[in-house]
């Protein structure tokens, strides 16, 4: 019988939000069992929101739950508080929120596409995709004033309007992405190496996806038509015709592998382009915030009482915030954040079992986790420990690509 080894991946990567540990049991090259050990780090974000901060300060704290999706967390929090405090948001603000959310989806999905290419050792594509992504970052900087952190959402609306001269720039960006899309689709989906490394790899069946309650592109790539924007529309989304994208729209059938997850994300970039265009055309004029005087707004939130749950379709899946407010209590009385990755990491097990060690980086990355794991592996053999670095791991992945190309 072959020896069975246990590899532990993780648990800490200093630069990332959710340090996590995967224990992988391997027999030779093949993965036989996977265990995920979450909660390796506690940042106390919810505690700060419930003790130190007032409601306005918590928006900026929520923005920093995750750097990439820095619009979805604050908007989720804001939606919950608006429901409790009964704040009516002007229609123009809702349209601006939709545009901001979709801009974020474009940049997040392109960032992921680059990372996926890198995990396969295809760094040319990584640099190309990130060059293409720079266009949306420029637009974000132009419209919001900063490249990444938008600081635009506020209870009852948005803080800054989209200027008339900026609309032209956004339209130019949309045209650029329409042209770039066909090129990106060709580079990702028609490349032989890409196909060999991702087709039939890391399959998550529809049944597994339902049982593990997968969300976002991970669930949709397995053929589940599930999208919060479609099922429970928020902001101005009821005005748009949004449908959950499944990979069979492009390829004709659904497998649920890594390739399908690439297809879904690329198609969603296209969908976001259409949504932004429609939103720009139909954006009504008028106020952008319900209550301009922030002191009044803070007093109103302090005087409200109740609880609410808000759901938001973040680039990685469904984001949920639960908020409870108490009369006369300035911070949030209770605040619970459930980020999409928490749910999606469970689907690592069915995805990984039966595949090779060299497939771990791309499969782990395929759910677009909010952390790059695989920073080191410790192999314990006869009581001696050997530590492999992420470079070694990356090298294995590159070697497999080379092997397949022969």
């Amino acid at each position: 019988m072959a020896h069975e080894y246990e590899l532990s991946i993780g648990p800490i990567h200093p630069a990332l939000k959710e340090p996590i540990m995967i224990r992988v049991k391997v027999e030779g090259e093949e993965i036989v069992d996977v265990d995920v050990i979450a909660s390796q780090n506690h940042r106390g974000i919810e505690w700060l929101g419930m003790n130190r901060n007032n409601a306005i300060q918590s928006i900026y704290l929520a923005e920093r739950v995750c750097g990439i999706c820095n619009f979805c967390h604050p908007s989720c929090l804001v939606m919950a508080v608006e429901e409790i405090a009964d704040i009516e948001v002007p229609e123009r603000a809702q349209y601006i929120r939709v545009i901001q959310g979709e801009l974020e989806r474009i940049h997040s999905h392109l960032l992921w596409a680059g990372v996926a290419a890198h995990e396969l050792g295809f760094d040319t594509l990584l640099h190309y995709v990130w060059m293409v992504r720079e266009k949306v970052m420029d637009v974000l900087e132009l419209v919001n004033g900063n490249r990444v952190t938008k600081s635009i959402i506020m209870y009852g609306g948005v803080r800054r309007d989209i200027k008339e001269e900026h609309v032209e720039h956004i339209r130019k960006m949309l045209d650029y992405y329409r042209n770039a899309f066909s090129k990106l689709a060709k580079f990702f989906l028609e490349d032989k190496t890409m196909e060999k490394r991702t087709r039939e790899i890391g399959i998550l069946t529809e049944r597994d996806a339902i049982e593990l309650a997968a969300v976002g592109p991970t669930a949709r790539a397995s053929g589940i038509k599930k999208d919060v924007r479609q099922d429970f529309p928020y902001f101005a989304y009821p005005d748009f015709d949004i449908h959950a994208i499944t990979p069979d729209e492009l390829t004709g059938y659904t497998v649920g592998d890594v390739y399908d997850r690439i297809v879904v994300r690329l198609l969603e970039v296209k969908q976001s382009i259409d949504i932004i265009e429609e939103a720009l055309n139909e954006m009504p004029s008028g106020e952008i915030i319900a209550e301009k005087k922030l002191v009044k707004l803070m007093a109103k939130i302090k005087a409200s009482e109740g609880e609410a749950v808000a759901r938001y379709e973040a680039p990685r899946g469904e984001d949920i915030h639960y908020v409870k407010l108490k009369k006369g209590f300035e911070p949030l009385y209770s605040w619970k954040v459930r980020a999409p990755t928490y749910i999606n990491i469970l689907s690592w097990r069915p995805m990984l079992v039966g595949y090779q060690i060299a497939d771990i980086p791309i499969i782990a990355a395929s759910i677009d986790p909010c952390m790059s794991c695989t920073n080191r592996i410790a192999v314990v053999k006869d009581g001696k420990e050997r530590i492999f670095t992420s470079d070694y791991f990356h090298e294995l992945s590159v070697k497999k690509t080379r092997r397949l190309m022969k």
Partner: protein
Amino acid sequence: MMFPMFKQLIVQMFRKPFTNPFPAKYAPKSMKKFMEDVEKGKAKINPPVEIPDEETFRGRILYDRDKCIGCQLCIKVCPSKAIEFKKEEKKIRIYIGRCIFCSQCNDICPTNALSMGNEFLLASDSKVNDELVVE
């Protein structure tokens, strides 16, 4: 097609690099020496990418001392607690080292004493030097 990126690769070889080589085309051996040379006029800095819109850009905060009435509202909303109140003068002091550039204090200020500037190259060896403390 086997390698659809091949054509793009050939094209890329003859193109100018996409990134802006800041602060110099080739990384200097010693950054400190390079900066000293720049001060003396021996070397030149390759300028950073221009600010797209000076009105919306959020750079180092600007503080109009005379307009400030000492109401402390900015201190109440600052998410990173970067603003300190000077009791005797009834004015504020902003530590840029802690500032997160959200411009929330600009919004709440009743007299428009605060605004966002355009300066963004704020690296320094001390977080309390003159450039990083606005008062």
